[in-house]
């Protein structure tokens, strides 16, 4: 399975995402922000970092990059897309996911290993987890506080589209303790914490994050 990882100017965790895809058994394909070609990939990861320096608003400029036109179109046809941290911000800015990510309460950048609860296994990226499974992955962001209007929040909860929730109080003040959400069809998932940094206990707090990538690959293999 070919999984694309986009590099924007200022992307930082693209190499980590490529490694995670590889360790999960997928074939990573690097995608360039200025291209209009997804190179026949079967899924796309929009990685973390500070695309375009996060100037204007986090993710705002990247959401308008040529490659994102292709991602939005392909997502409309059901292409699985995973946005991590800055990638989540980009997906929100691109309109693929509702809500927005704002400055953390406390105003500090937060880099910390956190426990997350998998609230939905009905997405392209979480099918391999068990419901309510707790996983440990790092959070590292300055603008990770998920916000949305009451109607959107109620809808996300009602439709089971909250995919990851912080265990205990959300350190960034995210509404509803939301760490990650999915699109209506469950194909597009965005989360603030970094599963690609939790693929090997040598370099991360656990290997729990690999589950997102293996979920996708397993589903594809059994389909």
């Amino acid at each position: 399975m070919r999984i694309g990882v986009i590099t924007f100017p200022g992307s930082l965790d693209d190499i980590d995402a490529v490694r995670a895809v590889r360790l999960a058994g997928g074939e990573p394909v690097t995608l360039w922000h200025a291209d209009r070609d997804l190179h026949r990939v079967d899924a796309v990861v929009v990685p973390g970092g500070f695309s375009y320096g996060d100037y204007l608003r986090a993710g705002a400029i990247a959401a308008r990059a040529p490659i994102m036109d292709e991602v939005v179109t392909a997502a409309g046809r059901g292409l699985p897309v995973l946005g991590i941290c800055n990638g989540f911000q980009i997906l929100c800015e691109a309109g693929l996911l509702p809500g927005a990510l704002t400055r953390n309460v406390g105003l500090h950048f937060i880099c910390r290993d956190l426990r997350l609860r998998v609230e939905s296994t009905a997405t392209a990226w979480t099918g391999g987890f068990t419901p309510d499974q707790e996983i440990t992955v790092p959070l590292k962001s300055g603008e990770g506080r998920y916000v949305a209007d009451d109607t959107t929040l109620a809808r996300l909860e009602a439709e089971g589209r909250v995919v990851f929730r912080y265990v205990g109080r959300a350190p960034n003040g995210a509404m509803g303790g939301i760490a990650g959400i999915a699109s209506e069809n469950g194909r597009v998932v965005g989360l603030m914490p970094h599963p690609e940094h939790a693929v090997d206990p040598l370099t991360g707090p656990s290997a729990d994050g690999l589950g997102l990538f293996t979920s996708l690959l397993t589903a594809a293999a059994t389909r």
Partner: protein
Amino acid sequence: MTSAAPHAARDQGALDPVDSTPAVDTVGPVGSVDSVDRAAATPGHPQPYRELGLKDDEYARIREILGRRPTDAELAMYSVMWSEHCSYKSSKVHLRYFGETTTAAMRTRMLAGIGENAGVVEIGDGWAVTFKIESHNHPSFVEPYQGAATGVGGIVRDIMAMGARPIAVADPLRFGPADAPDTARVLPGVVAGIGGYGNCLGLPNIGGELVFDPSYIGNPLVNALCVGAMRVEDLHLAFASGTGNKIILFGARTGLDGIGGVSVLASDTFSDDELGTGRKKLPSVQVGDPFTEKVLIECCLELFAADLVVGIQDLGGAGLSCATSELASAGDGGMRVELDAVPLRAAGMTPAEILSSESQERMCAVVRPEHVDAFLAVCRRWDVLATVIGEVTDGDRLTVTWHGETVVDVPPRTVAHDGPVYRRPVARSESQDALVADDPERLPRPAAPSELRAEILRMAASPNLCSRAWVTDQYDRYVRGNTAGAQPADAGVVRVDESTGRGIAVATDCNARFVALDPYAGTQLALGEAYRNVATSGAVPQAVTNCLNFGSPEDPHVMWQFAEAVRGLADGCAALGIPVTGGNVSFYNQTGATAILPTPVVGVLGVLDDVTRRVPSGFARDGDAVLLLGTTRDELGGSEWAHVAHAHLGGRPPAVDLAAEQRLARLLAEAAGERLLTGVHDLSDGGLAQALVEACLVGGRGAAVTLPPLLDPFVALFSESAGRVLVTVDPADADAVDARAQQAGVPVERLGTTGGPALDIATVGVLDLDELRAAWESTLPTLFDGIPSLRDRAGEADP
């Protein structure tokens, strides 16, 4: 985004003076330029050389070199390149000792040393690493966020200039008292600046230091370390050779930021800066743009990979003055630079200002003519502005032209290397005798178990010993996915080669109180601690760098401290058999008339053949045996206990025994290589008590221990004798490790066993982990957020 393409195309043409088109409209009538011809014709023209920091004899020397008065642009170049910061004029005579004490055996792995942008050592499997620490103390005091941010940016470019990919950063920081109002102004800004810049660059921050002491109140120390990795064959050195090769300036535009003292020259030329030319006076602290630097890193690495670069130099202190004169004097020819081609971001800049600007995120490369198009194409792909600004010539002069007139015509070596050398008076002050005589013996010590228990808690909560998480949680330690150890570990560990697991460990240390008591021994203690911290990770120490932060070199006592520190470090490195590969000197660190504590920060880099063998620094498993390695003596001079309990500084620092450090390090590396160690933690500030507290809290489990029977419990807990570590081993391996330590000549004491919800110290008391954690973790959040903690441990991963 700025598009590089149109500029690149046009600026290439700018080499031809006829077609030259300035990037920004320049103001000032023709003839207002202080050209070489004009300088020759107006020998009596008064020049503000004293305002630029030059002494009378230095100015006379410049006139002698040139055979005329310097132009404004030349004066700007000489004044900044002959400054203490760039020329090391007060320290040079002492720093030579590093070279004199480095033997051929110590040089075997060294590919580049002192004098290059950063030292380079070979680490095996065809890999080389480069590392360096630099100070950004004064800018960080003036403007904490930008001062600290650009400190990170500058050291990262130094590493890039060696041809390496930067792989990690770390920041030794020192501030005034933790509860001082000015610390509340400076510290949060410095931490946010380091995080804001480093996180956006995508470099893991793997360690550093945080120290509070009253001597830093008016002069915090913000030191920045960067490590880079490269294939041995990719080493790039800064030199300009090959007549006809092009000089390409790439990265950000050049502006008025960071011009500092040179602005006095502008007032000679412009009667009314603010109104007449649309120029604004900008702060002397530079402003950083980490996004530009991140793109510059990727762009540089692509240029190196395509072999499009002959020589490269970063633009840091002294900007283009430094880059052009250093490139030219390291090469075999001359250099011609056309300043009109330099892309500017301010109108009406003078040649002197363009040459002196310290605008960030700029690099200068020497490129073969046939590679220029390919070079510019790579820059375009990354949207990096790149401009040909000159070429290597067959002469031996550095010439700079502006509007068709020559404004600089100098022998480049006289700017870059032949600066003044001072032999400053060196004298040990008599006050040193009183300091050493003030023995901590006289200080009342806690003795009853309840007093000792309370002291452990008080120490754990004290600003220099408490959890650094408030700071380090603001830094990304995960990015690039190669971090195998970071704060609160004793050393940062980074994997360099994913296929072989080869990696490096790095630590920086300095107990400046020890250095104040005995600069020679104190600096060796700093070296010993950094060396030991690297060894705790299982790595073999290989190389040393330093950042020597001292007071005014015009104070003979400060120069005595400096000379002793250099001698101590060099002799110490010779004893350990590892070379000093580079360093940085920062003088004039004073609060008012009072010098800071002498603070020679020592960085040690070690190598792990396989990072999966790295050893964690906390109690990682239940039921392991806890062993104390090394000798404990009654040594409390300069200790954290004397500082916290009595605000006392006096006596002698702990004894130095580098042979013992070496034996200990070898033992640790061997045992780690055989996977015999489940945890190692260094004993330093706060002694055994603090090491036990940290090992428990970092590992998330308690321990039951008995203090060494032959020692007074207070001494056992709080002495800061050097050369000691705590190790944990599987109980089945305890005898083997014990025997091996005895064989290696390392004293061993079995203290107890890990596990349980508390640190239980026999005859002293039981310290519940929750109580310890509350004490250890709430200090910095309370000081700098005004509340004990925003953290909710329910959601946090078990350590």
